[in-house]
């Protein structure tokens, strides 16, 4: 059998298997290996397809993803067992396998490429431009997609000042949370004097629920390297560090390999591409402390000290690492730099809003249908991201809030869904951009408990150096625990606000100053939930265990046994097709049945408990 595989090497078939963290956990590696093994046995194919393991495509919900080029076919949720069929049918005979295609939930159409899905169509990729398209272990893959072109251009025809001017004109603002203008930061460092200057990439990614930095480090490490070299050239730095979160093994591995390859090709080292630019990069693994994402703490951590922030009378651009002028930028910020330098400021500045240019990567997670990474122009509304790209809420539940900005961000209610997302609008709404986590919450999420969760998180991560942050968080946590346990009083709410004001005004670093945000934003938008806990001793979402009991409505129960199957303590009795009953003396009130029931038969007892 002569395969219908095109022998023209430009059209050579390529199999891209997503091996990002999400797909790997779902078996992506096994799929990749199965392709490798099985394709070897197809000697009849004249030109064997190339198989590549790529970084995270962002559409983790549908993983493991397999993409076939040049036809641009995307298969979802591929298992190793599907591989031989894909080879025989699609690669050899050119037939689509319907079962593995994505089916649009509204039009019910089968879509052959992920590019046609709502999830991708509305995205605009700059920082994530290469991820999923290349094998991060192959420097040539990166080079083929304009990689290191910006560096060549810069070395041949631009001065360091030219680069700063372009970055400034592009209006790039830091993607790590603060939104500080990147060009201005670089200028300050360039103007500062010091024997040596340093470049740091902040890959600590401490915000829970955000994983864009991880995805970029894993899936396109060369863009970070190129960005940092450009930064070094611009400000006159000779050494760079990438501080990577300890949990990110694959990121460390891929980045380490990429740095090695870049050195071999002369992009890093003593005379980069024959010029007199000398710059090299080292990886530092984080120690696992949230506060180390804060730049002064991060610098202390690289220096081999405990990561305690210090007050910024002097900025790191003046006195940073080892007292020398230092530029520190977030991973996503660096990923934008090569594109801006290569294509100029104007195309970038055309995207976004007045004061927030370009795109932002969000990690859309929580109770939403399409979870994953999305990159959209600044100024896109929350509604577009959550409903159009994200496909709305899971199980069609009702939207309650979206949390943005990490632990020190805030919860934004349904009334603000049409808010265009940019740095300034989020602050106005009592939250902030943070690193771009969007955590969608439905009516089964208790906002008081969410505030308690973040306060607990921050209390654990407060470095303890200053009193307002250390003691303020502890006091707030105590109060919130009390409210969740049904012991709260109405005066507690004033006290929470009082403490917040002190923390905002008197804390040493941004961690403490922003730590009251979760409490303040939930009090601002969801006060009635606090009141229900305090005055009626009930938790409307059915989360706070002390205030919740579940029962099964005999009229609605169909006896499907789903709740029974999910009950980990066997508190539910009932035969198939008969009404089920919860034994309250065994029930631990975890609410799993409540969330699982498709018929709304599991209900909360609404009467006051006392």
């Amino acid at each position: 059998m002569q395969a219908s595989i095109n022998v023209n090497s430009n059209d050579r078939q390529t199999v891209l298997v997503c091996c990002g963290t999400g797909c790997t956990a779902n078996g992506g590696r096994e799929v990749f290996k199965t392709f490798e093994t099985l394709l070897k046995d197809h000697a009849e194919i004249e030109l064997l397809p190339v198989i590549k393991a790529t970084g995270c495509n962002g559409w983790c919900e549908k993983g493991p993803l397999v993409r076939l080029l040049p036809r641009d076919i995307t298969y979802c949720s591929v298992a190793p067992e599907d591989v031989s069929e894909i080879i025989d049918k699609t690669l050899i005979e050119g037939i689509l396998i319907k079962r593995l295609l994505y089916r649009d939930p509204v039009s019910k159409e089968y879509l052959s490429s992920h590019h046609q899905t709502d999830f991708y169509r509305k995205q605009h990729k700059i920082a994530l431009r290469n991820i999923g398209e290349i094998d991060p272990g192959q420097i040539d893959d990166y080079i083929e997609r304009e990689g290191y072109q910006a560096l060549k251009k810069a070395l041949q025809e631009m001065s360091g000042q030219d680069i700063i001017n372009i970055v400034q004109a592009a209006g790039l603002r830091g993607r790590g949370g603060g939104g500080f203008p990147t060009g201005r930061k670089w200028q300050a460092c360039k103007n500062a004097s010091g024997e040596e200057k340093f470049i740091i990439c902040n890959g600590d990614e401490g915000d829970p629920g955000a994983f864009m930095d991880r995805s970029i480090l894993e899936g396109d490490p060369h863009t970070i390297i190129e960005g940092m070299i450009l930064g070094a050239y611009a400000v006159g730095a000779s050494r760079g560090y990438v501080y990577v979160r300890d949990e990110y093994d694959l990121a460390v591995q891929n980045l380490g390999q990429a740095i090695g390859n870049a050195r071999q090709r002369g992009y890093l080292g003593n005379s980069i591409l024959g010029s007199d630019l000398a710059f090299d990069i080292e990886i530092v693994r984080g120690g696992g402390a949230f506060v180390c994402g804060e730049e002064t703490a991060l610098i202390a951590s690289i220096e081999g000290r405990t990561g305690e922030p210090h007050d910024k009378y002097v900025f790191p651009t003046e006195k940073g690492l080892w007292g020398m002028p230092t530029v520190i930028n977030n991973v996503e910020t660096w990923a934008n730099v090569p594109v801006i330098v290569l294509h100029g400021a104007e195309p970038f500045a055309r995207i976004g809003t007045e004061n927030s240019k370009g795109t932002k990567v969000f990690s859309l997670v929580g109770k939403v249908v399409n979870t994953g990474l999305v990159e959209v122009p600044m100024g896109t509304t929350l509604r577009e991201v959550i409903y159009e790209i994200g496909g709305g809420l899971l199980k069609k539940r009702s939207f309650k809030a979206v949390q943005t900005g990490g632990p020190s961000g805030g919860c934004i209610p349904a009334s603000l869904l049409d808010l265009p997302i940019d740095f300034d609008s989020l602050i106005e709404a009592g939250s902030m951009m943070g690193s771009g986590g969007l955590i969608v919450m439905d009516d089964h999420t208790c906002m008081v408990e969410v505030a308690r969760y973040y306060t607990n998180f921050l209390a654990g991560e407060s470095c303890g150096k200053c009193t307002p942050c250390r003691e303020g968080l502890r006091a707030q946590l105590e109060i919130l625990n009390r409210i969740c346990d049904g012991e709260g009083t109405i005066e507690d709410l004033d006290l929470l606000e009082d403490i917040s004001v002190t923390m905002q005004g008197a804390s040493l670093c941004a961690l403490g100053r922003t730590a009251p945000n979760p409490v303040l934003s939930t009090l601002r938008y969801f006060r009635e939930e606090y009141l229900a806990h305090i005055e009626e001793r009930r938790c409307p979402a059915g989360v706070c265990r002390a205030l919740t009991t579940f029962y099964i409505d005999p009229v609605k129960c169909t006896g499907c046994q789903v709740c029974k199957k999910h009950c980990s303590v066997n508190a539910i009795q009932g035969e198939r097709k008969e009404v089920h009953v919860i034994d309250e003396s065994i029930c631990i009130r975890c609410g799993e049945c409540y969330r699982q029931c498709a018929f709304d038969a599991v209900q909360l007892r609404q009467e006051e408990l006392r």
Partner: protein
Amino acid sequence: MQIEAREYEYANDYKVLIESYSGKPEHLLAIMQDVQRHYNYLPRLAISMISQHVGIPVSRVYAMASFYKAFSLVPKGKFIFRVCDGTACHIKNSATLLDQLQQHLGIEVDETTADGMFSIETVNCLGACALAPVMVVNGKVYGKVSPGDVERIINEYGGQSYASQHKC
């Protein structure tokens, strides 16, 4: 600071590991991480050797060890069950997974079973939020774990006996 006798048996191994780095303070974190990764904790002897190699007081190594979450001063279990309690996992009920693990293994978070087999930890986010709730056992990621899956996962690592011992 008390150094246990058996630690001296490893003195040479510690030395090789520690001296593979220069003694510059910027490598302190990396050295400590390597030792932690190798031995699942920071043995006291290794701590004093690190302080000598880098030329800093033992107290500073301790300060680092207690500040950063990556380090432990007591040996951790052979299998470490890490439950993600990042936001995405939290609102998908990670607390119940934790309850289940604690109940089955008879230990609390940050504790290790007496025979050194199992530890339970929480982690702030594993960057796999799309699979929430997530649990990792020695590097293997389990996504969309339901409370009912926990027992099965424990059994994969030979934790059955614990489950029966501690179930009432």
